[in-house]
């Protein structure tokens, strides 16, 4: 049975190959390594920025859209998790809108990103989320997003 049958959401952990159960993206554009915790409408995810990451630029720093994609896929993993615990397939989500995105610092290879997603209510297939990404406690980016989910 699915792992979500466990009672304690806050100790849930999906990582490595397991994360593929939650998100539809695959190499070379997988931008979440792990869903580390879920507590109500809030989840935390992680990503290690490795050499060869799709969004690493010539100056060896991550392009800002890489942070947006990481936050979007973190929300997607959260939505996927909620479906998987109900025994449903993970949905495919599309970014509908990015709002109030700030990039304070572009991550470097070797940085360990920790992201907090706050999920709003879903209305007509549109979910508003807020995401904040930190490296060693320093906020490197934050944003709001509207995400559309497709039922296929």
């Amino acid at each position: 049975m699915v792992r979500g049958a466990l009672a304690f959401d806050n100790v849930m952990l999906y990582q490595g190959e397991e994360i593929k159960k939650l998100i539809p993206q695959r190499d070379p554009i997988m931008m979440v390594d792990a869903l580390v915790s879920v507590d109500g409408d809030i989840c935390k995810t992680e990503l290690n920025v490795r050499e060869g990451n799709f969004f690493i630029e010539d100056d060896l720093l991550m392009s800002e859209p890489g942070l947006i994609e990481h936050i979007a896929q973190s929300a997607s993993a959260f939505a996927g998790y909620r479906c998987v615990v109900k025994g449903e397939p993970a949905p495919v989500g599309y970014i509908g809108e990015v709002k109030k995105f700030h990039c304070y610092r572009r991550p470097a290879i070797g940085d360990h990103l920790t992201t907090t997603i706050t999920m709003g209510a879903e209305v007509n297939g549109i979910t508003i989320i807020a995401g904040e990404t930190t490296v060693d406690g320093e906020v490197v980016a934050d944003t709001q997003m509207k995400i559309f989910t497709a039922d296929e």
Partner: protein
Amino acid sequence: MLLKDKFYRVQQENILNPLHGVYLIALLPDADVYRGHFPHKPVCPGVCNIETIRECAEMLTGKKLFMKTIKQCRLTAVATPQVCPLLDVDVMLTPVQDGSAYIIQARIADAETTYMELKGEFSINMDK
């Protein structure tokens, strides 16, 4: 640049003035990103279209630009290399007073459809 000649190719540049350019781009259907977005169902990642806007703004200004803020970016239609093989990327810049950044307004569209509209502030130095 991250995506130029990998995700898209510039077919034509129409520089209306030093702060306003329209780039006709061809999406490359064999781009590596479609292996993962999504398997057997190629869809342009919205973030790649955002990056494409930045790269067009860099071509227009000849400067490396950082995405300090995106005030609002609406993705109004799903773009794929099949649905919209050719796209216009319209980039309009307004310098901020101290010269450290540009306010950007950009749109990606073809004759029928608008795929993306973006408003933000791109800085010339990341530190500002």
